[in-house]
């Protein structure tokens, strides 16, 4: 049981408070971007390329302009006049807003139709005639790296190949040396396929430019409204839209998962059109556009190796990555981290030698990549380390649980320095795995498996014991376009003791309106229900970098605690004044200060706040407000031990996830109900890439599954009944000891599932299948081995 310091009435940390935001959502009163309707609003629809790579010979808009209701058709040439046809990506690459001569991927924006209604815009889009000269696209990243391949980014002067960047970390010489001498080396190549976040709400915006006041209000589906405001100012400052004239509002968001971090061309076109017409312009993607053109996630080709002893001691790992970024590197990573936080991939194991390198390459695919409910490439890294750990266990003939137990970093060794330079803050990996094994009945499952194997039946047990890295991040290393990755909280307590708190983050379903209130309630003793949390409006919220990469609790959550503590310090001063004692004579319990040894002499927080406005000490600033910009001293390192049991139909390859136990360590828990909900959701987004989801292209660059009919988002039937629990090792450097949790399950689940499936198939010499592992792939592997 989780211990709570506050009463249920106050509702601080540890209480499973029901969510405050749900009241509107369950009644259909959520307010999403497509719900916005403004007077005179125009609608935008986008003409997209049917080809993956083509020259644009001509765009004929004459028929489109005849469609009733169509007001304008905007092309790249139109934007070129304002130098708005290209924009920078977050990774300092460049991306077309609208092309002037070449399209680089199928479904790329080609022209925008503006009309007085959604239907007219769609009709206009149909009537725009574009003449293309198709070229042979490059879809395979390995072919693209071949020096003989044609150069794709001919817009870049002097570019002579399709290579984007090279990255490496670790000690290459030492790693090579350990590998050379190692008793056991295992190696596996794997592709972590291109997937899509596919939030149920697609992306969209309403750009509302007020010509008279030269002011833009941009309502949009963004996870990072402040950063977007700065980006708009950087892109459009030269036409007079400077940052004080821009307000970005992120209304309720129907799921983000990283897909609503980037700036998509549609947003920029909508702003440009609103700027030119002085009218509000709405752009809402449909699902096909969302799947086919918005940023993808993953698409890493990885070769991973592990070296160790025959006795099963891990000694070193080596990773080599080829990253397919599509036609531009539009990743949403911190600036200095080309591969995000992939270097967490050395895992939860105690060894000191590793080397990783990665190369990125252009292809004729949509640009990206973003996370998919994961902290900057951590999922790719964890898939690699947890798969290779299993292969190592297999090679040395050890049970994968036993091997992990023997190699884990010990809890007393934290803070622990990883071979790639991270300092893990805290953890108890042994306790986590032990708890998971007990919960699932590991030993009896292994017995059952032995009996089933004897009968030729396929049953598998898979483990993943991962370490995450979240909460980006410390300003010495972490920035986006130069802006340091702090985050912020501002708390204003009103004279009657009720508060409003604003943040630089933006919930997309994480429950910030509840959990931030709980953090403040914990620190100040003001009931959470009396704390109104607001995010997403750059005019009112303090500057922050937004919500992604499980950073909200580690950064803005910390800011809330620190800001509240500033207020508690002030409260102590006021209480001392009111009670006529010295500050040292006071003691705090949630909600009041009382005099030590005389508990009847006390002032409640509400009385103290009232005094701050009505009877504050002379010389003290009136009011009861605090703001804090929190610059984390380190990242946080949540961890988990997941065990999955699968049964496989040998004849059809169908895989049934029988049970799945997830034990997470996210440090101190703010709201157990919400943490559990986040874990459930993340697990379903873990089974998704493990067994169902992948964006598939043919060699001509056509996407083969660009709708929800073929892009297989799991339903309640595919999603198993998840079983969850936790161990708690508080983060020592975080003000409330929390670590962040939203993404751990997405990171940890795929290797647990893949390991379970491979465990089931391992008696037949089948040791690796790339995710998503489908019945067809299982059948094919069994067929190739002559099993069926």
């Amino acid at each position: 049981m989780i211990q709570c310091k506050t009463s249920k009435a106050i509702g601080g940390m540890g209480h499973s408070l029901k969510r405050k935001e749900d009241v509107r959502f369950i009644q259909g009163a959520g307010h999403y971007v497509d719900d916005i309707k403004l007077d005179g609003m125009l609608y935008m629809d986008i003409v997209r390329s049917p080809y993956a790579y083509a020259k644009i010979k001509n765009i004929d808009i004459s028929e489109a302009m005849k469609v009733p209701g169509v007001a304008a058709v905007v092309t790249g040439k139109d934007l070129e006049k304002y130098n708005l046809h290209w924009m920078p990506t977050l990774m300092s690459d460049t991306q077309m807003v609208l092309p002037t001569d070449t399209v680089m991927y199928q479904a790329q924006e080609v022209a925008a139709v503006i009309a007085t209604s959604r239907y007219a815009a769609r009709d206009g889009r149909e009537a725009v005639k574009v003449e293309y000269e198709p070229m042979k696209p490059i879809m395979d990243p390995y072919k693209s790296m071949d020096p003989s391949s044609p150069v794709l980014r001919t817009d870049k002067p002097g570019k002579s190949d399709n290579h984007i960047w090279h990255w490496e970390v670790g000690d290459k010489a030492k790693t090579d040396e350990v590998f050379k001498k190692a008793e056991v080396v295992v190696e596996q190549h794997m592709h972590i396929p291109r997937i899509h976040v596919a939030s149920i709400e697609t992306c969209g915006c309403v750009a509302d430019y007020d010509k008279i006041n030269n002011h833009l209000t941009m309502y949009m589906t963004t996870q990072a409204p402040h950063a977007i405001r700065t980006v708009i100012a950087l892109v459009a400052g030269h036409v007079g839209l400077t940052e004080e004239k821009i307000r970005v509002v992120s209304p309720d968001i129907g799921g983000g998962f990283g897909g609503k971090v980037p700036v998509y061309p549609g947003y920029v076109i909508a702003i440009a059109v609103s700027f030119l017409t002085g009218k509000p312009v709405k752009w809402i993607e449909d699902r096909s556009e969302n799947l086919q053109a918005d940023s993808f996630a993953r698409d890493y080709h990885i070769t991973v190796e592990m070296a160790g002893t025959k006795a099963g001691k891990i000694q070193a790992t080596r990773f080599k990555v080829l990253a397919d970024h599509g036609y531009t590197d539009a990743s949403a990573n911190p600036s200095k981290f080309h591969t995000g936080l992939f270097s967490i991939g050395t895992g939860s194991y105690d060894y000191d030698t590793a080397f990783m390198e990665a190369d990125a390459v252009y292809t004729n695919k949509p640009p990206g990549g973003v996370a998919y409910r994961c902290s900057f490439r951590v999922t790719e890294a964890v898939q690699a380390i947890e798969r290779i750990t299993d292969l190592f266990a297999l090679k040395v003939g050890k049970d994968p649980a036993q091997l992990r137990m023997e190699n884990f970093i010990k809890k007393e060794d934290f803070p622990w320095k990883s071979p790639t330079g991270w300092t893990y803050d805290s953890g108890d990996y042994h306790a986590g795995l032990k708890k998971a094994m007990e919960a699932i009945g590991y030993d009896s499952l292994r017995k059952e498996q032995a009996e089933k194997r004897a009968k030729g039946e396929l049953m598998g047990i898979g483990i993943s014991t991962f370490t995450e890295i979240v909460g980006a991040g410390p300003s010495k290393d972490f920035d986006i376009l130069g802006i340091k990755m702090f985050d912020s909280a501002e708390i204003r307590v009103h004279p009657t003791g009720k508060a409003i708190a604003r943040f630089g983050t933006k919930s997309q379903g994480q429950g910030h309106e509840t959990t931030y209130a709980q953090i403040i309630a914990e620190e100040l003793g003001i009931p959470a229900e009396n704390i109104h949390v607001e995010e997403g409006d750059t005019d009112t919220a303090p500057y922050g970098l937004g919500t992604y990469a499980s950073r909200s609790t580690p950064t803005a959550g910390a800011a809330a605690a620190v800001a509240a503590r500033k207020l508690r310090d002030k409260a102590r001063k006021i209480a001392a004044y009111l009670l006529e004692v010295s500050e040292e004579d006071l003691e705090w319990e949630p909600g009041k200060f009382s005099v030590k040894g005389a508990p009847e002499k006390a002032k409640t927080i509400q009385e103290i706040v009232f005094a701050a406005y009505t009877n504050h000490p002379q010389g003290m600033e009136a009011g009861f407000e605090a703001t804090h910009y929190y610059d984390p001293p380190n990242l946080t390192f949540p961890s988990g031990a997941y065990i999955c049991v699968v049964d496989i139909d040998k004849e059809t390859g169908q895989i049934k996830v029988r049970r799945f136990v997830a034990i997470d360590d996210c440090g101190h828990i703010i709201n157990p109900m919400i943490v559990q909900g986040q874990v459930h959701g993340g697990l379903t987004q873990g089974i998704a890439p493990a067994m169902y989801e992948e964006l598939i292209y043919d060699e001509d660059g056509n996407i083969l599954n660009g709708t929800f009919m073929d892009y297989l988002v799991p339903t309640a039937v595919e999603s198993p009944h998840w079983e969850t629990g936790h161990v708690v090792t508080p983060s020592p450097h975080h003000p409330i000891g929390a670590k962040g949790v939203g993404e751990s399950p997405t990171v940890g689940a795929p290797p647990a599932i893949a390991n379970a499936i491979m465990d089931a198939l391992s008696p037949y010499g089948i040791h690796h299948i790339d995710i998503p592992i489908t019945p067809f792939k299982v059948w094919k592997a069994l067929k190739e081995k002559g099993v069926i």
Partner: protein
Amino acid sequence: MIAQPFQYEAPATLQDAIGLLQKYGDEAKILAGGHSLIPMMKLRFATPGYLIDINNIPGLSSIQEENGFIRIGALVREAEVEHSALLTGHYPIFADSTRLIADPQVRNMGTIGGNLAHGDAANDHPAVMLALRARVVATGPKGSRTIAIDDFFQGFYTTALEPEEILTEIQIPIPPGHTGSAYYKLERKVGDYAIAGVAVVLTLDGNLVKSIGIGLTNVNPVPMRASRSEEFLLGKPLTDENLAQAGKLAAEDCSPSTDLRGSEEYKRDMVAVVLRRMVKLAAERAK
């Protein structure tokens, strides 16, 4: 996604509907449940000038037993098929198959007539009707005619319906004793079109197969009967060897294509596996 403009008609009688079909010719499309047609129109793959909504026509929505047949009106919704005691009582295959069609909301709109008239080998009821040896009633300017299901599916998305005809009813023989039926399709996820699906209806005479119908889903350009498998099993006991041979014959005879659901070889193999399992299940139910 928004359809191209069209004219909408909602005739109140079958005659009026047929009259509209005659008037508008191949520019017209019939709207029943709309769950195949409307998505195609939204994608602008289908651009009919006229949409003839037949949902207001009375008399096409009942399930009745009459003269040794169960008569199912073309506008009977999949959800009604799924929960019809008359249908599922005689033929559990209706419960098996209907619950695997798309999802509950789609089944509330989608009709059994539309599922057949679309002529789509990926739909589930064509195979079921082949296994049941059903008859289809088509009504046109010259009145109604009955079409044996084997004559109904004629090609890729092509049926025996004339342009001016509407599918109005499906007739299924009441089964003799010791009849069992079963359907299963392998799918990538719930509600998906089949990787491979097999419908089986059989009547046993002791341990021997007295009669059998086998239909296949989504493994052939045209909804397909596994004729050689049927013929092979007739008069035989359902031994493992016989089942394996029947599966092998259907796997050879179908013509699946490699796609996102798997390779041609996989699908053939799945036809064999599912056929064996469904014949077994139908036989258990027959006992």
